[in-house]
């Protein structure tokens, strides 16, 4: 029996600054942890996992994790797994964009309106995952 510390979901967005999809991943993460599910989800910075920060590693190892990647290199998903995460739901901005091709994100420092909308759509998807995690028992078999 694996005891979980919490069913609060850890959300890890991409750290990329080269493409708008990275910005969408962060905007979606902020929408979830600041607005949609502030008491059920919290954010862990990818850089702390690169550093091997104990607190960050403990958080991903003891809680369900949602990673949001901006490109196929999938740094967030890879780092979460390498940091001991047992339950990782891997999301990619490109998949949400394929379902909503009219919402083409542009801009990195500042997303255009379509990018903001895409982030909100993605955030709603993540909120559903967070709710599913919160509805479960505090232990896993």
């Amino acid at each position, binding site marked *: 029996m694996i005891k979980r510390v919490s069913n609060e979901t850890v959300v890890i967005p991409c750290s990329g600054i080269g493409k708008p999809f990275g910005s969408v991943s962060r905007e979606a993460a902020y929408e979830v942890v600041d607005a949609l599910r502030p008491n059920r989800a919290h*954010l862990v910075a990818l850089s702390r*996992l690169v550093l091997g920060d104990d607190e960050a590693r403990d958080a991903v190892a003891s809680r369900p994790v949602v990673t949001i990647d901006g490109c196929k290199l999938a740094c967030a998903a890879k780092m979460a797994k390498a940091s001991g995460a047992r339950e990782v739901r891997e999301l990619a901005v490109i998949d949400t964009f394929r379902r909503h091709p009219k919402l083409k994100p542009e801009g990195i420092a500042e997303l255009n309106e379509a990018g903001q909308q895409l982030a909100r759509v993605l955030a709603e998807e993540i909120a559903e995952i967070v709710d599913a995690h919160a509805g479960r028992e505090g232990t896993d078999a």
Partner: protein
Amino acid sequence: MPELPKRKVGIVACSGEEIAEGTVTRLAALRVLHDLRPEDTVTICLPLFLAGGEGDRAFARFYPTVTIDGCEKRCAAHGTATYSAEPAASVVVSELVAECGLGAVEGRRRLNDAGRQAVEATAERVVALVDGLLKPPSGRRFAATLPSAGP
């Protein structure tokens, strides 16, 4: 005469999504890369040192690198040193904000005024470091800028 590749400086931002100073690092890096020194700088995502391949890990061995960290944890500086090579220089936003007396940086999603000022101050500091790294040693010129290497 063969054209030698232009010497550039690598910029690595911590991106620290949890704190407003992390947002400052991203925006300052973008300001340098896109507006202030587009011809002289390149970047890489910090996590690629671990999630990427050997080519990514060689980044700081190939480019003299300036790291931009949001806080005293210095994830970008330590991560770059550990997985690629020691950075040539580093900037810590929280220290720079205190040094410049900018006030509390807030708003990781939308920076407040102090945060926006911190972006400019950080970008200016990075530009000074980039220019210093690219400046030829006194009395010498870079091979890349020499018109002829003949006797």
